């Protein structure tokens, strides 16, 4: 009896494998469309980011296709899921490669993007990251085919450092992260940016520590933080923790200004913290989609609103859309689907290519040029506005 069942199970496995194989072999490109892959965390811990990225890219593709597509062909999206984990990321990248797409958008997290970028590099395929901000992605290793539309941790860290010391005149600075690749990256870079000021004696970092993500009670950490009497408090982690942190800090009687990194503040942050304490929170951030008034931005916003009844609640999905604009622009400029030509165009021929967040220009190392940072503030209605001084 075990034999029969074993056979059955084996049979099912084989059949499933075979079916999956068939499904996997659908690729190749029909010639009428240009296939572009989006590698994003559709499942896993950052599933909400991946799903919003998918929606954003779909909206951008629709707009591009309405405007005539690229090289006279329609853009066809291929979605591959990396589940926010390095192993699945390598598999997702390999899947995108075997589908013979023209270029790839992706991915979200830096340590997840890294193995994928290596695979794309090996296979000579252009990939454009949209949420991976670690400096080392472009600076540690020369990658010919890797680009990103988001800014880098060091730019954000520098912006924070300058703003906190020069603009706010903070003498005692607290930096908190959550031990994730992204948050620790920004926190480390902020620390680096503050070092010259500390050498001059203009400021000091009184607190630098991590909280544990996915926990809910940070009262011990904020009590410790309060005892260091900071003038400003920079949290570089994600919004679920940020919301809990600021509420618990205010409950514990810590009243210094709260500055979040660009993953810390969004509508959900306000909901979690409650408007009473969220109002006034600051955030270091690239220009938000709501503040960009270019044509593309307004088209994007209205179509997104129409399709999904809301706007993306975090900035990253918009960078995914911009990655698509950049790829399409580069293909247009290159005039062909050859990876070398696309990479070349990305570096040198992007004049005039616009995305949702503005001009899309890239440095030799693949970083986006001129990413402006602004200090945003949660206004009394819970909306994010550029902070007035």
């Amino acid at each position, binding site marked *: 009896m075990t034999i029969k069942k074993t056979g059955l199970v084996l049979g099912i496995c084989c059949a499933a494998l075979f079916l999956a194989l068939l499904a996997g072999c659908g690729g190749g490109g029909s010639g009428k469309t240009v296939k572009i892959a989006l590698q994003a965390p559709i499942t896993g811990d950052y599933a*909400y980011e991946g*799903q919003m990225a998918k929606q954003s890219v779909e909206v951008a593709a629709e707009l591009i296709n309405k405007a005539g597509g690229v090289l006279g062909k329609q853009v066809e999206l291929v979605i591959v899921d990396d589940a926010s984990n390095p192993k699945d990321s390598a598999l997702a990248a390999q899947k995108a490669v075997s589908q013979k797409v023209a270029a790839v958008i992706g991915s979200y997290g830096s340590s997840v993007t890294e193995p994928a970028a290596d695979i794309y590099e090996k296979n000579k395929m252009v990939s454009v990251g949209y949420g991976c901000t670690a400096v080392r992605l472009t600076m540690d290793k020369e990658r010919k085919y890797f680009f990103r539309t988001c800014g880098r941790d060091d730019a954000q860290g520098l912006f924070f450092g300058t703003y906190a010391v020069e603009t706010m005149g903070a003498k005692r600075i607290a930096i908190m992260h959550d031990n994730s690749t992204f948050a620790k990256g920004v926190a480390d870079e902020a620390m680096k940016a503050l070092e010259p000021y500390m050498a001059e004696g203009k400021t000091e970092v009184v607190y630098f520590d*991590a909280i*544990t993500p996915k926990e809910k*009670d*940070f009262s011990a950490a904020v009590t*410790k933080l309060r005892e260091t009497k900071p003038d400003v408090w920079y949290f570089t982690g994600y919004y679920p923790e940020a919301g809990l942190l600021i509420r618990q800090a205010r409950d514990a009687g810590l009243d210094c200004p709260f500055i979040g990194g660009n993953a810390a503040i969004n509508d*959900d942050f306000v909901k979690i913290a409650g408007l009473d304490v969220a109002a006034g929170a600051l955030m270091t951030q690239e220009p938000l989609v709501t503040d960009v008034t270019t044509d593309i931005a307004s088209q994007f916003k209205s179509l997104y609103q129409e399709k999904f009844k809301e706007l993306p609640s975090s900035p990253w999905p918009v960078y995914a859309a911009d990655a698509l604009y950049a790829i399409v622009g580069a293909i247009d400029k290159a005039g062909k689907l050859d990876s070398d030509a696309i990479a070349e165009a990305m570096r040198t021929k992007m004049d005039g290519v616009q995305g949702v967040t503005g001009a899309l220009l890239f440095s030799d190392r693949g970083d986006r040029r001129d990413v402006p940072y602004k200090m945003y503030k949660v206004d009394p209605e819970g909306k994010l506005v550029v902070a007035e001084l």
Partner: protein
Amino acid sequence: MSTFFEQLVNGLTVGSFYALVALGYSMVYGVMKLINFAHGDLFALGAYLGYSLLTGATGKITASMGLWGGIGFTALLVALSVALAGVLVERIAYRPVYPSGRLSLVVSALGMAIFIQNAIMAIWGSRPQAFPASVVPSLRFSFFGIPVTLLQVTILGISFALMLIIWLIVEKSNFGAAVRASALDRETAILLGIDVRKVIFFVFALGPGLGGVAGLMNGLYYRAISFNMGWNYGLKAFTATILGGIGNIPGAMLGGLILGVVESLLAGYVSGAWKDVFVFILLIAILIFRPTGLLGEKTAEKV
């Protein structure tokens, strides 16, 4: 010094949640010798059900019964439905697998945990949800110089009351005696005429019911709930259970409270980044010297 006491109170608050979840673990473990990995996710389910009840129907429950009455009524509904879920989990995932041994049960429990967690994600979405401020009582005051909120005091009060009730049930009632007997030696308990099925039903209703209420309280207290919140609480509560001596009800409470306080003190005075490393090192160190936990009885090997 007042900061120290403040950290202590912080720790007790965290610890009381661990303890409430740990109670369910420990009760189930005692009777079934099973690590119910799904327990943490039932806790999360309680939080989400509470969220839906309180915010759904535009807050009709709180509107018609007042804030505290509404929350109380919701807690009752949550307790009942999560208890039902707990009993269902036992029927579906554990009872058929029980004869196959403890290792299979672990896999079955992991499967159930993954299932519930992802079902929550499929129903309520992957983004964290927040309890609206309108359903959360808010009042801050200072108690001997320690800033506390009304909610914190209430949560602590309710937690300790619940723990006391459970302790009384388990230690003093007939049913509790049956539970303890089944935990001690299931086969003898059956021989003595204890209906072990009833006992199992009871612990799988009581444990998760309690966990569900803890989930609701957790949601109200921290406001934010996420579909994967159960995993972390589950792991910590399991740690607390072991720390106190698994299967030992007062041990679970003590373990939870100690774990909470230790975590707070580590995060407050040592390092937030290394906190969990030290927690586990401490746990291992304790187990080296007390191999059956703090309150676990040192049983001689029966040969």
